[in-house]
Each structure stands twice: as C-alpha cells, then as structure tokens.
C-alpha cells in the first residue's frame, strides 16, 4: 500500500532559467534547488527560503549543487569545468573556492556518509578530494568517442561506492542506439583511476530508446516502448573487457505510455518495493509497486502551478516534483507489499499479522459428486429433459444427493430452468426447490411471474414465505398482481382466514379477507422507503386507489409499531411507510384526480385522529416522566444513602 498526501508548492522557478536539479541537504530538512543561475536553499516544512547564491553574468551552473555534511560545504559545477566550493556563510558566489579541471565534468554525486564523487563526461568517476588536490591529473576517457553519457548514479556497495554510468552509442544507419552500463567501484581513499566493467543493456524491443533509469540493487530502466526492465548488476556477469556482456532486460511490466510516445519519464526509488513515476504528458505522479507492478497511488498535479514533470526526487518521506516553473512536494507513505494488499483484500488486522504456514488440512469445500453434476447438467439442459416425466424422474434421482439441495447455486439454476421452461410446468419440483429456503429475490428473476402466470396461489404464498430479500420492485409487482387478482380465485382461501370483526367506526375492508391476508404478507417484507417509492410509480392509478383505501383501513386497525422484529403481522409503522411512499409516488395524480379526493380527505382525517391520539400519549408520557422524576429517590435510593442505619461490621 502506498498513499500520497496533497501536494504543496515549495518554490517557483523563474521561467528565464532552467532548473538543473534538486538535492536534499543532508542532515537537515532543507532542499537545495539549483537553476542555471542560482543556488537556493529552501526549508520544505514551511517553504522558507533560507539562502540564495547567484552566479555572475556569463557564468552558468551545470550541475545541481550538493551539500557535503562532512565539510559543511556546498559544491556546484560552473561551466562544466570549474568546481565551486563554499560554506553557507559565504555571501557572494564569486568569492568561493574554485578548482578548474581540464576535462568537462558531467555529474556530481554524493551519498550520505561518503565523500562526493565527480563523473567526467568521459565516464570516469573520481573522488572529488583527489581531483581538487591535483586538478591537473590526467583523466582518461572510459567512453568511446561516439558514446554519450546519458545517465549516471551512485549506490553503496560493500565498503565502497558503485558508480553506474549508462552511455548511448548513436548509430548512424537508423538503427536503434545501443546502451552500455559502465560499473565502477570506488573505494574510499583509493586515489587511482579505478577499473571498470561494462554491461551491454539490450533494449526489450527494437527501436526503443532508453527513457530513464533508476538504481537499486538492480538497474531499473524504462524504455520508449513502455517496458520496464530490470538489469542485474552482478559484477560477476560483467566482463572486464570493453566488449561488455549483453544483459537482456528482464521485462517487469509494460507501462501504458501515452500515444505518440513520450520524451521523458522520471522515476525514483521510494523504498525497497516502490517507485515514484512521472511521465511527460500525464500531469500526475504515480507510485508503483515493483514486486507486482501494480499502481498504488496516483496523484494529479493540477493544483500546482506549471506543467509537466521534469524530474522526481525523493527526500525523506517527501516526493519532490520538479516542474517547469515550480517545485512541489508531497509526502508519501509506503507499506510493505503483499499479495493481499495488491488484491485489495488486506484489512488492518491482516496487515499486522504475520503470514502463517498453512500446514493444516485444506478447507473442505462443498463439491458436487460427479454423478450429481452430470444429473444436474442433464436437468439444466432443455434438450435432455424435454418433458415433465423425464424431468421429474431425474429430479427425484437428484434429490438423493443431500448436498445438491443445499447448494444455493444449484437450486437457483434449477429454479431458472423450471421457470424458463415453457413446455411443461414442474410444479412439485419447484415447490421443493422453493421449500429449501435458499432462494433469494435477486437470484430468481421470473419466478414470481411464472407462478403468477400459472395462477398457483399456494406456491405463490410458499414463494413469498421462503424467498428471501425480495427487491422493492418485486414487492410492488406482487402488490400489483394481488390487487389485480380476481376475488373468485381466492374464495377457497377465504374460508381459512378468520374475518376480522369490523367495529362500528372502522371502515369496512376494501379487499376480501383472503386477499388482505396475502397482501399483508407482502407488505411485511423488509424494504427501503426510497426504492419503494420508485417502484410504486409503476402501479396503475386504479390500483393505487384500492391500495390507498386498504392502507387507510390498515392505518385505523393495525397494531402499534413492532419493536424491531419482523413479524408476519403488519404494524402501523410499516403501513405508514407504505402510505408515505405511495402518496409520494402518485402525489400529483392524486391531487389532480377528482375521485381520489374522498380517499385523501378520509386519509387525512384518519391521520389527524392518529396525531391527536399520539398527542394524548405525549401528555401522558410527560406526566409519567414527571412521576419518575418525583419518585426517583424512592426507586433508586441505595440503602447506604439513608440518614441513619445500624449494621454489623466485621473488622479484620
């Protein structure tokens, strides 16, 4: 996991000069920003400018300035051949100590707790101290004449410092250029010209050019084809000869580069398994995980002035972004990557857990036996079970496998098959399937529609009881079906349902008793008011009127709100919810239509009565609360608080 905080601007760069680079000021919280004309030191925390040194007209700085904490000196290159050294107390840069060498210098490099290193354009690295001591030392070129130093970095290896230079040999005849890495180990105190080893960096594909590199244990490179390669820097591979061993890049990942190619990509190591990456054309900084090559974080830079990303630097837990006209910083954090994290499955606890060996028996999964699977396939295949007898026979065979009817997927598959089968109606099988209680509303579309089409009320009721989590749309569809149902179909049912004894002032139920009982079952299901309202708009207006009347009737007769439990008895709060949703969904039409007026007025009257009733309850509640206040000392009085008591006490 990696995160990036919001970005803030450290400083802006005058457009007249070019930013050369940014270096951390070792041992502090400051960064050194070097342009062609000036060296500035900023404190990142509050973006304060601490020091500025400018170069005189005519001169030009050619490398980012470094700060050597050992000598407390700043080092910068002027006009490629002059090394300037000064301390922070110096006021003007032209008064600094200058050492001029004969050959142009390309890079100045510094590792923490090591001496600075200079790398000549010819590719040979030297300790700075040995050059300043003897500026006239003859420096041999490592690179061939047609080779050009494109990239250079240093890393710690053993007791010394490994300098890696990458050169490009321009080929004349339109071939892709070839790249060579020169590895050179500098040992502290060793003043001699060091030996070097070469590695031929093979491009991952033809005609791709090297965009950028970064150095870790391996050399990581990004190529213009989008490939990210890792090259081993094992010196045993490298030969001492000039003709370096060709090291094929181990392609780690293929970046999705913008079309038309990119001129530059900047990459910086942010930890053992993370790199920061920015590329031309994309105005954002990304953090990639190098183990799995997944994008961990992506932060757009729109809120910072300037465009593009020239280069990325790392400074502590901050990522410094050098843009064309500004330098921005953003803090980042990375956690060790794991597969779980990459998959997005890592929880906070899991992150803290040590991975454990899974030596125990593998978790037993429910697998259908081979025969059952075959049977299931047959059952599911309309071609193999063409008619009802064959289907039922198969099904009865299948029932022997206990596991099958315990598997929700198998059950829902079977239900789908039965429901979609037009040629026969496998009622008994479906009844059993529904009876398993494993179906949910979303996994069995079309079930109710088919049952309704068959006019099978028993099965319909069974479905209503056993199918879980009916979506609101489905609930409304059931309501619609019920309201449209012919009462004659329900006559058989009505005998079973005891008719509620209507009291004098309660309006008669607008629906038959059996229908009302079924409707109550539908309304008792759980729902969300918002979705309910959307679905209720589907109801036809005549049905709305009937439904509204029914709900009004229920409002006058339903029992008090249920306390959390989902009973089969419709309670007032459910009725009110449905009422609200219904009236809300059809409000305009209800208001505009004259025939609804009576119903609405009646409903309003009922609601008002109810409100009055609750108002009365409120008064009673206030009275009782007062009683509780008054009697509180009596009820909660602890025995110990009495004014006088005698007790036996044992002292030991």
């Amino acid at each position: 996991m990696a995160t990036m905080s919001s970005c803030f601007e450290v400083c802006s760069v005058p457009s007249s000069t070019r930013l050369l680079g940014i270096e951390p000021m070792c041992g502090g919280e400051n960064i050194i920003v070097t342009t062609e004309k000036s060296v500035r030191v900023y404190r990142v925390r509050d973006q304060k400018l601490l020091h500025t040194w400018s170069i005189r007209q005519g001169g030009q700085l050619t490398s980012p300035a470094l700060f050597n904490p050992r000598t407390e000196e700043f080092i910068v290159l002027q006009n490629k051949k002059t090394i300037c050294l000064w301390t922070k107390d110096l006021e003007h840069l032209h008064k600094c100590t200058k050492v001029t060498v004969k050959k142009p210098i390309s890079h100045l490099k510094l590792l923490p707790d090591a001496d600075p290193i200079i790398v000549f354009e010819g590719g040979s690295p030297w300790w700075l101290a040995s050059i300043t001591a003897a500026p006239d030392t003859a420096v041999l070129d490592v690179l061939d004449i047609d080779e050009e130093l494109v990239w250079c970095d240093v890393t710690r290896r053993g007791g010394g410092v490994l300098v890696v230079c990458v050169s490009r040999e321009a080929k004349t005849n339109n071939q892709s250029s070839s790249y060579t890495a020169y590895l050179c180990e500098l040992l502290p105190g060793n003043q001699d010209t060091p030996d070097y080893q070469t590695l031929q960096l093979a491009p991952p594909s033809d005609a791709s050019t090297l965009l950028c590199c970064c150095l870790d244990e391996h050399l990581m490179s990004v190529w213009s084809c989008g490939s990210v390669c890792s090259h081993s820097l094992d010196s045993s591979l490298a030969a001492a000869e000039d003709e370096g061993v060709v090291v094929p890049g181990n392609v780690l990942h293929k970046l999705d580069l913008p079309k038309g190619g990119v001129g530059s990509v900047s990459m910086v190591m942010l930890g053992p398994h993370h790199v920061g990456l920015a590329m031309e054309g994309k105005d954002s900084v990304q953090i990639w995980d190098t183990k799995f090559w997944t994008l961990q974080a992506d932060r757009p830079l729109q809120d910072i002035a300037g465009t593009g990303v020239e280069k990325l630097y790392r400074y502590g837990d901050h990522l410094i972004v050098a843009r064309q006209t500004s330098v921005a910083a953003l803090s980042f954090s990375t956690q060790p990557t794991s597969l779980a994290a990459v998959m997005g499955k890592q929880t906070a606890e899991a992150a803290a857990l040590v991975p454990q060996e899974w030596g125990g028996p593998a978790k037993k999964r429910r697998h259908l036996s081979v025969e059952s699977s075959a049977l299931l396939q047959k059952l599911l295949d309309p071609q193999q079970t063409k008619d009802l007898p064959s289907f039922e026979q198969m099904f009865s065979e299948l029932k022997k496998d206990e596991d099958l009817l315990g598997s929700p997927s198998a059950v829902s598959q079977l239900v789908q098959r039965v429901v979609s089968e037009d040629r026969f109606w496998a009622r008994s099988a479906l009844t059993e399937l529904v009876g398993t209680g494993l179906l949910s509303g979303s996994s069995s579309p079309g079930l109710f529609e088919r049952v309704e089409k068959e006019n099978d009320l028993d099965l319909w009721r069974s479905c209503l009881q056993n199918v879980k989590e009916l979506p609101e749309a489905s609930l409304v569809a059931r309501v619609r079906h019920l309201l449209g149902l012919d009462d004659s179909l329900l006559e058989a049912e009505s005998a079973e349902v005891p008719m509620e004894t209507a009291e004098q002032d309660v309006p008669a139920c607008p629906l038959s008793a059996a229908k009302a009982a079924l409707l109550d079952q539908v309304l008792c299901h759980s729902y969300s008011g918002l979705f309910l309202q959307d679905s209720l708009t589907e109801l036809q207006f005549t049905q709305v009127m009937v439904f509204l009347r029914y709900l009004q009737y229920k409002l006058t007769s339903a029992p008090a709100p249920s306390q959390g439990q989902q009973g089969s008895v419709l309670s007032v709060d459910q009725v009110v919810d449905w009422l609200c949703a219904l009236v809300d969904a059809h409000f305009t039409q209800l208001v505009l239509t004259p025939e609804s007026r009576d119903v609405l007025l009646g409903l309003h009257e009922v609601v008002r009565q109810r409100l009055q009733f609750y108002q009365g309850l409120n008064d009673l509640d206030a009275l009782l609360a007062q009683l509780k206040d008054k009697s509180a000392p009596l009820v909660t009085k602890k025995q110990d608080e009495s004014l006088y008591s005698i007790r036996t006490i044992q002292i030991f």
Partner: protein
Amino acid sequence: MGEFRLHDVRFFRYMPKAIHSIAHEQTTNRVAVSRSDGSIEVYSINDNWYQEKIICGDAGRSVEAMVWVGQRLFSAGLHGDIIEYDMTKLIPKYAVDSYGGAVWCMAVNSTQSSIAVGSEDGCVRLFEVTEEELSYSRAFKKQEERILSLSWHESGEVLVTGSCDNIRVWDVATGLPTLRIKVERLVRTRETIVWCVAILRDFTIVSGDSLGKTRFWNGKHGTLIQSHHCHKADVLSLCVSKDETLVWTAGVDPKVIRFEKVAGKEEGSRGSWVRHNVANRHTHDVRALVMTGEYVVSGGVDMTLVAMPVGKLGKQSRNILPFPQRKLVHVAQTARRLLFQYQTRLELWQLGSTAAVSGMPDGRLPITQQPVSLLDLKTKNMKQIVCSAVSGCGTWVAYGDVQHVRLFHLPKEEGVKVLQRVRCLPIDLQPAHHMVFTHDASKLVIATNQGAVQMLHVDAVHPVLVHTFLPPKGSVHPTTISALTVSSDSQWITAAHLDCSVHVYDIKTRKHQCSLPKHPSPVSALTFHPTEPWLMVVHASQQFFEYNVSESRYTDWSRNVQRQGLHQEWLKRSEVVTQAAYNPANPTQILLQDQRMFCVIDKNKKLPKLGSTFYSREKLMKLDPAVREENRHAFAVCRGYRALLHLSFLEDGAELVAVERPIKAVTDKLPPTLSQKRFGT
C-alpha cells in the same frame, strides 16, 4: 479482630462554605484559605496539608483578599477594613480603615514593606507595614471605576491595576497613571471587567476579563501581544510561576488553563504564550488560584481545595475536603448522645437503637428506636463556634466562641427538657480553642487561646476555675494548642501545641508532669489509654507513638512499631488522622480515623511487613478465609468514606458511631454551574 455494631449517622448536615481567596506564605510554605463566611483556614503544606488553624469568621466581615507579610496575615474585604490577625489567639488583632470603602484587591510589594489596596472608590492606597501595625501612607490619583485587581512589579516602582473596561499602569513614586489600556467591550452597553491582572518582570501584563479572554500586553507601550479566548465565561483569577514562564488562569467555567511561554523561533525574537493544558478539577467557579512553588492551589464555589502539582507528570493532584480537620462531633458515650457543631449552632441527638442481637456481616439491623433531636442551640448574635464539648452523661454541653465560653445544663428529668445556661462563669476564663469534659463530668478542661489549659469545676450554680496550667517556660511565645485530651481516670491532661511540643499536666498535683520528645510534625490527634497512663499521639506525618506518661518513656509496643517502621501504604495516605481512641472494652485496639477511612490497630497482631501487601478490610473480605487469616495484620483499614467526620466507640466498646457527611450531599446543594453545551444534550 472483632465484630462491632456500627451506627451510620448521616444526618449531620454541615455545610462547608465556598472559598473566596487563597494566599501563600513562602518561607514556611503555608496557605491561608478564606471562605465565604469570613473564616480563614491555614494549611501547612509541608506537614501533609495539615489544617493548623481556623480563624473564625464574623457576620460583618468578608475576606476578599489576603496577604502574608512574613508570618503576619492581613485580610481585607467588602466591609472596608484591613485586618491583621493574631496568629496565636486566632482573632483579629486590629483593623485599619481602607479610607476608600469596600476593598476588592490587595497586594504586597516584593520587599514586603507596603501593601497596595484597591478599593471601591477607584483609588489605589498604599499602607506601610511597620513592626506593630499597618499605617496609611498615601493614595494614587483617583480613577472613575472601582479597582478590581492589582499587581506589583518586582521593582516596586510600577503597579498595574485592572478595573472596568481598562487596565492602568501606575508610577508608584508619583501616584499617576503612566499608561491606560482600554479593553474592548463585546456588547456596547456591557462593560468588560478585568478580574485579575499580573505584571511580569519584563513588563508583560497578563489580564483575565469577563469576556473569558486571557491577554498578554506589552506593559511599556500598552499594546496587545496575544489574546487567548479559552474560557467560556469570566476569567476570575490567575497566577504566575516563579520563573514567569507559566501562567494559570481559571474562572467561571471550572477549567484551570495553563499557558507556557515559548521562546521565539530565532534568537532575540519575542517569545509567545501558548495554551498548554487544561485541568478540570472543579465543578463550579474557581475564585482563587495561587502558585506555591510545588503546587497550583485552586478553590472556589465547590469548596474543595485542589492542589495540582506543577510540572511533575504522573503526580496526583490532591483534593482537600472542605471539612475542618478537627472535631465537629462529640459523643456522650454513656448517654449515647451526639453533639453536632455547626458554624453557628449546636445540635444534640439521642442515638437510635436496635433490638436485634446480631446480624449478617455488613447487614442492616432493624431499627427499633429512631434517633431523636434533643436540642438545637443557636449562638448569640450568630457568633461562630470555635469549639464545643458534651459530657459523657450527656447532661452538660459547652461551647466557645472567639470571646466567651458558655456552659449549659440539660437536667436528666423525665419528660421535661429544659436547657439551663450556667451563668456566672468565672471572669478569668479565657476564650477557648478546645474543650473537653472529664470522664466523670465534674470538670471542664479548656485549651485557651493563649496556649494555657484551664480547668473549670462544673456546677450548675457556681462553677469555679480550679486551675490554670501554663506551659513550661522555655518557649518565648505561647503557641496555639492543636489537640487536648484528658485521661479517663481524670488524672492527666495533655495539650499538644502547634510548635510540635506536647505537655502533660497532672491534675491532682496541678503540675506540669512532663513534655514528650519533640517530633518534627505537629500532633493531630491525642488520646489516653482507659486504664494505663499511656498516651497515644498521632502526628500529621502519619507517625504515631504510645507514651507512658508516668514513667516518661515510650511503651514497648510503640518502640517495636518504630523499630520495625510503618508500612509505606500507611505513610503515603494523604489525609491527616483527626481522631484516636482506645476501645474501652479491649484497650489493645486503637481506633484511628481520618476523613476518608478509619483503622483499628490491634496491638496483639503482627505488624504488616514492610514491602508486603497492605490489605484493607475490603480487600480481605474478598479473599478466601484461609488466605485472609494469613494476610491479617495489626492494621484493619476500612476505606471508602468521603468525609468521615467522626468515629468513636460507645461506652461498652461493642458499638461504633460513624458520622459521615457524604460529599455528594454537600455538592448537590450547590448553585447550578455554568451551563455548557455538551455534545448529545
């Protein structure tokens, strides 16, 4: 150790008073605390916060401000007088008119030579402190508004005052204001009151006002350096640490906020004051805040004195319960009567009884007879009571105020309850600090306010002063007596003085018998063995000794205790033992009581080993009986009281009377606090 029948008495409705001001005396590390009834209490911080002295208040006297000049205590209040107190007799020595009406504030300069008094008429007046008294020196130029707060600069040349809407800086030499800082109003018609002000060495002025703002001003130019709006209501008091890097403020919202001076980012730049932390130790307005060096002491309407340690993390702050650390309850052991001493009245109660013989441990017994109030005696002119006593037979009641001793007789006649005041008390009888009847009720022993002990023959018609025992010559000044006791055979009187000396007088020979070896800490409780001439002395440092008076040596048991050392758990208790008593039925048991616990020490049991677990009764109860037996030791501690005011044996030694005043019952009667919006309410 034994089973007792404990009478839990909670009908003593003593109401402590709110704290109005606090003053700290640096050389001996004492704190004077004044309460709303005008009484002043002096605590010795070095002696485990022992309440050494109580100066009784008076209805016509208020204490708004106090200063210590050396060991001398001055107070001033809205009655318009500045009073110096006699710290031995604990009465006002003299009063000087402030010449400006009600006094709101008072401060002494760093050389302790003059006191500045800010009063109602808007004038700062200087009083010179001379050897003998306080003399008016001069007044500063008058301003319109009353002066509510003032502070001396260390140099003594500059004074800063706070009043309504402004802060003024005065030149002491000329008496003219050099600077006037106007404090803004929140509402145009409502003036902003600067309740407290302080000036630091670098002329930074700290002020707290009725807007709830703590402000730091440049005292030379009158510019505002910083303003912190931390309090929700008026900032009433502030105090500054010695090195002037810390400032505490407190006010109507009961928070104590600490500000710390933080050095500037670069050298030479001005430091800033940062709000540091907030302590919520009070429930009501904090009226007074004082820095004693080691503690920040605060007090206010919720009556409890809170001492918060400065700087040391993890050290507990300490709450000093608002009840006097002296006997407010007296028991007539034979008659089973209780005498309650309120500020200005006395109550006598007959204890209830039960017919049940025994019951479950800690179980309640049915009460067959409820306690009966026998007497409710108000003092004349609402004078505050200094001390009181009741005889063992319950027929004699005596009390003393700052001027007189009064004696009452309650004849034991059936049906008739007529209280007779005994007039014609001898004219030589001096005002009392402590008094106690002898066991046979024939004599009343009085510790006078001059450090002597007087013995009065008790008689309903003509009481006679039998003898006055003077402390042996040696000490130049008489010192206040902190504890007094009489042996049950009426042979010995012991008086413990605040200079830590303890003198024993022989009643029969009417001579000074002996003085106990001096222990560095004052005596807080004294008692005699019922049969032997042994004296139990408990010091404020939690040490105790048993002394054989006739042989003038410590008893063997006491030597043994000292040799082995007291358990750390015992020594680190914060409360001071206020009462000690032997069990009359079993004198090997000694009862020690402070405001939070009581302890029965059995001399026959082994002492707790140093470093071993010190089990209290509650902990032992939870243990297995076998383990319990193993862990038993001589100290049977019974914790869990909040303000246990009295505990003593009745005559048979099988019954105990515990008078508790639950602190919650007291705080429930307080006025409502500043209502603050809390989440979810």
